[in-house]
């Protein structure tokens, strides 16, 4: 079974303990925190995980934290719990990508379902993340000349056009293309383009530098 982890942030010790125990009783590993700060200071493993977060935390509201988390690249699916049952707040939370918004007291079934949905989302995110890391690594292994060729290939230019644009011979372009295919470990031109599109997306987002 792949390792899974649920983070819990709630300033109420009893709620924290009870949740810990409930999840332990169905063999889900947990790590709980009494504040957002202590959660931030803790080490996080890149495994399947989700975060159960109380909406109202002293110092910082859970809602604000969720918002900031995404910006800071801490991409863990969030399940909100609240003692207030605030409906407008839950709408905002869901719109911002929270897995669920549960009012205290919540039903076991509801929280477990939310957690498993959270794991699914987490799995997707991890996969995406790995793919991107892979692309990034490969892209960075290309030299400047090869990178230039890739950028034209994505745009659908022919070897001849690329040679003219870069002011090199067509042979050089062909050699670079072969190198690129090899470094990128792709078999077909179609695969190369697919990866190229991902690269272009990351370049636009700024998560990759030329």
């Amino acid at each position, binding site marked *: 079974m792949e390792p899974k982890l649920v983070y819990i942030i709630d300033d109420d010790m009893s*709620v924290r303990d009870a949740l810990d125990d409930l999840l332990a009783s169905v063999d889900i590993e947990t790590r709980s925190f009494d504040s957002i700060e202590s959660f931030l200071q803790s080490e996080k493993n890149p495994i399947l995980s989700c975060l159960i977060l109380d909406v109202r935390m002293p110092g910082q509201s859970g809602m604000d934290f969720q918002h900031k988390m995404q910006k800071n690249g801490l991409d863990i699916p969030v399940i909100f719990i609240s003692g207030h049952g605030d409906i407008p707040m839950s709408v905002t939370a869901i719109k911002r990508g929270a897995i669920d918004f549960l009012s205290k007291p919540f039903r076991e079934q509801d929280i477990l379902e939310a957690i498993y949905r959270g794991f699914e989302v987490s799995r997707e995110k991890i996969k995406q993340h790995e793919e991107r890391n892979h692309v990034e690594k490969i892209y960075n292994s290309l030299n400047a000349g090869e990178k230039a060729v890739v950028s034209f290939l994505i745009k659908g230019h022919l070897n001849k056009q690329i040679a003219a644009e870069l002011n090199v011979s067509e042979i050089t372009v062909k050699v670079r293309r072969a190198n690129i295919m090899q470094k990128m470990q792709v078999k077909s031109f179609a695969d190369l383009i697919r990866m190229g599109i991902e690269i272009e997306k990351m370049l636009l987002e700024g998560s990759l530098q030329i």
Partner: protein
Amino acid sequence: MEIAAAVFYIAVILVGARFISAKGVIVLCSICTLLTVVSFFLTTKGLFETGLINCIIALSALYLTTYIILRTQVAENNAINATYQMTRIARIQSLGELTASIAHEINQPLAATTASADACRNWLMRDKPDINRAIQALERIRRETRRASEVVERIRRLSKNEITQKEICDLNDIVSDTLALSNALIEHHDIELTWNRYDAPLIVHVDKVQMMQVIGNLFLNAIEALQPRLVTERFITVKTFTMNAQACFRMTDTGVGLSEEDIKHIFDAFWTKRDGGTGLGLTLCRAIVEAHKGIISARQNSHGGAIFEIILPCKINKESNNSGA
């Protein structure tokens, strides 16, 4: 000439003041001023000086009237506001906030309790039941239920802090005093009030202020029930009488009335059909009446509208056993 016109303007303002707001009165006054000045310049006949003096006198009269009217309106508004405040029971501005924080205080231990109960069951239902952890969960449940009941106890203590001061008094006087306080409201809402006072004292042992709050609240509800535009007959009838040696109070209105469903829930806490209503008014009414060993009831009037009735134990007047219902 200007003086005659001014008298006419003053009449306009006096009549207008009955129907329009303070702002409207000021606008009206400005228009009248303009008209007076214009008419002064248009009137070429007669001496200029006499005309000027007349004009000044006319304007002074106009402003004086307007000023008095505005002052009266402010005073009336104050009276109406004071009545609202006096009769509205425990109307806490931030009641929403208060209930939210109470809900939170109770939901925390409830969440811990239900989660622990689920955990406890899970530990016991395992292939190899983990008795120790199940017991730990049970301990937590006990702790958390105690915590919840402490919250409830704290709230109860809070509400008990109000001291009741019971005294021997005449129910008729309590009703009269409350209605007198509400005079401004009745006029403001154009309601016809009939007060059928029982012709002998109805001696009860009650906290007078609390009873006034109860009756005042019933009265405010009746006024609110008469608000909708479709209600054309605006009558409230108040009556005191005795029945089985008990002091009785009955308020009948010709308002929107009560459905079967309304009657079932009307005394429930937080049950309201009114925007911005707390739904606590009648709940508190019943709490107060029952604390006085009385009974409060609501029913639909067969002619439309609602009937509210309060029955209180009579203190001494037991001999007057005639049914005046």
